[in-house]
């Protein structure tokens, strides 16, 4: 089945020079009667943009997603030159030495190209969102005086420790989370427009583990990506060890179990970080970067962080799924299909987000462990 384009959320930022993907139903409001004041964030685990310039911030200790209205930047445009030592520069802006912050996530405002970093200041655990505009200037998102909506996650009594990922899918908020006590896969959904202190619905997910050759409910998702296919909305999720699974979001009912379909296996010993779709030369692809936690034992390249591109049609696969799903590697760890390729130029990419039609903004770890913010062309 042909996979149609998912409409990337566009923020209400100024420049439209390098974005052509219009938000679907952009007139629909994302926030309904937002609160104004200090956003009571405990942790900024993950970031993603919804339409209308709304930044979604996943906060595990609060078991909530905060949707914060952002304002257009004064200096739109994509980063003109790489920033070496970006981690130290971000740390210095909040008065911390290098290593005094942890960069939790990176998201790019789709229309302005401004980078948003979720940061934790280590000495007092302050959750901070910093921005870097096209000129390389570092800014601070004002969370002391903002319009925002908090959406609580029902947890079934399980204490949420961390939001794994968050996304906006056409008209709803989607999140994946990990709990401290359970090795479980949970999908949270809240219908838009988001109302302050509304509670989302919780769904347990079953996943077919391709390598394991078994259905299981026990693996939490690392990264999620909504997409549309045949007029229906789906969620693609990637897991450690590393199946790519899709779930239908159109037939969910609260508390129901969602059964996913595994369409691809990227290889064991890895944890996916980010994932998005794009089109190049008329063909649609998905790009995903991955941390290989068994890099020391069996490296896939010079860095533990590697990136692969796969054909987006694989998400529409209906026949070769689950136990017949495509494997990236054969038993000898050799490439098993030309439909999935490793992108050498992306070695070391720790975080990434799409930057317009042709580029990707990447947070890249160099061989000397220094961090760099750079723009790479879509492969």
């Amino acid at each position: 089945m042909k996979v149609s384009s998912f409409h990337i959320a566009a923020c209400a930022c100024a420049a439209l020079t390098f974005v052509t993907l219009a938000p679907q139903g952009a007139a629909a409001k994302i926030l309904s009667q937002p609160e104004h004041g200090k956003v009571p964030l405990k942790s900024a685990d993950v970031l993603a943009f919804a339409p209308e310039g709304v930044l979604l911030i996943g906060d595990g200790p609060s078991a909530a997603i905060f949707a914060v209205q952002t304002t257009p930047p004064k200096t739109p445009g994509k980063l003109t030159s790489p920033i070496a030592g970006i981690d130290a520069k971000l740390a210095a802006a909040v008065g911390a030495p290098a290593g005094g912050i942890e960069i939790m996530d990176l998201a790019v405002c789709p229309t302005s190209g401004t980078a948003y970093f979720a940061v934790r200041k280590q000495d007092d655990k302050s959750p901070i969102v910093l921005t870097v505009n096209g000129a390389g200037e570092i800014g601070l998102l004002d969370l002391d005086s903002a319009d925002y909506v908090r959406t609580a996650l029902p947890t079934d009594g399980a204490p949420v420790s961390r939001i794994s990922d968050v996304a906006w899918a056409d008209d709803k908020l989607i999140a994946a989370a990990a709990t401290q006590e359970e090795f479980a896969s949970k999908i949270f959904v809240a219908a838009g427009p988001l109302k302050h202190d509304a509670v989302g619905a919780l769904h347990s997910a079953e996943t077919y583990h391709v390598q394991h050759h078994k259905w299981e409910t026990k693996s939490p998702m690392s990264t999620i990506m909504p997409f549309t296919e045949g007029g229906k909305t789906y969620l693609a999720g990637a897991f450690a060890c590393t199946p790519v699974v899709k779930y239908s979001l159109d037939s969910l009912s609260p508390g129901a179990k969602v059964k996913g379909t595994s369409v691809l296996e990227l290889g064991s010993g890895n944890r996916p970080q980010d994932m998005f779709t794009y089109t190049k030369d008329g063909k649609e692809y998905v790009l995903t970067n991955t941390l290989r936690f068994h890099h020391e034992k069996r490296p896939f390249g010079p860095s533990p962080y590697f990136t692969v591109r796969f054909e987006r049609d694989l998400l529409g696969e209906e026949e070769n799924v689950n136990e017949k799903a495509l494997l990236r590697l054969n038993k000898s760890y050799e490439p098993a299909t030309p439909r999935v390729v490793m992108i050498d130029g992306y070695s070391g990419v720790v975080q990434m987000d799409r930057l317009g039609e042709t580029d990707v903004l990447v947070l890249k770890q160099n061989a000397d462990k220094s961090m760099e913010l750079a723009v790479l062309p879509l492969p």
Partner: protein
Amino acid sequence: MMSATLLLLTLGAALAADAGSPTITVDGEPTRVIVSRSLTPEEVAKLGADGPIAEPAGRAWLTLSLVGDAAGRPPTPMFGSYELRGGKLLFRPRFVLVRGAAYEAESFAGDGPRSPHLAAAQYAVPMLQRASTTVVAGVSPHLPTLPANVLKFYVTFSAPMRQGRVVLEQVRLLDAGGKELVAPWRDLELWNADATRLSLFVHPGRIKQGVNLRDDFGPVLEPGKQYTLVVGTDLVDGAGMPLARAFRYSFTTAPELRSRVDVAAWSIAAPKSASREPLVVTLDRPLDRHLALRALTLVDDTGQDLLGRAEVSDDGRRWTWTPTTRWTAGGYTLKVDPVLEDLCGNSPLRAFDHDLEAEQVDVLPPLLERVFEIE
């Protein structure tokens, strides 16, 4: 409010100290400061009336930056708020300063760091002058012998800890020869809300059978061997202090446990009516104590939840429940939430490593409640 001017190094020697030199003043805590500089009437006129000054405008006259080369030159100015008051420009950093770090205030002639600075002052934040006191308060499970497919450990600390992925490298598993096991943990740090309890999952891909990770690298723990879990003093608490002492827990491993929790095999010792004696449930195996504390509940014969205090014994094999009021004679039900797990992730519904389409593996339907009588 305590107010004391600290180390002031006037580098603009040609200028008088009160003609634009910055001053760093401690604002109550050593990690909070107010930076100020005086302005001439002409300079004040450029900034306007007393009151808040926009951050970009303030930075043209005064900045505070971390001292060090890591962030490069020119230094990155810190975020904060500016205020014009009585001929002085004041700067309050948005975030607290870091103990042990040094900072430099610089003043400029209204053109920011692009112009030569007029003067500078430095301030070094003192380290905490106290000994480390934070320790590991306990590890769960903490038994002499664990199944080789034990899924997770909870490490509880006596105070909130500093978070970060590095903690997954600072809690180590050693084999009997003291050699460190490589990458034993699932690569995701999971803390409770106040960062006093860390959950460490032994990598599930090396527990599950038939997964490449286990096929290639083998299980993390093998039966019949000795291991030691070590929490090193390189872990840092929330105040930036290392642990006061390392923590070591040695255990041997038994054969893997790959069967579901058998609620039918639990033994229930019912107390007498009119007493407040605890109900004692002897379990078929040690359970995850944190899950057991919230997954087991009691209702009376009308379905009403009972109030009381649940405890799990140190060996995880006994669950006790003490009511807040005296027992009355009648029927009761112990309800089991299926989130309950043993030490290996096996639940009452299914074993951790289980094919959901092969239900014939567990012939009997799962049991999620036990009925008992109080006489």
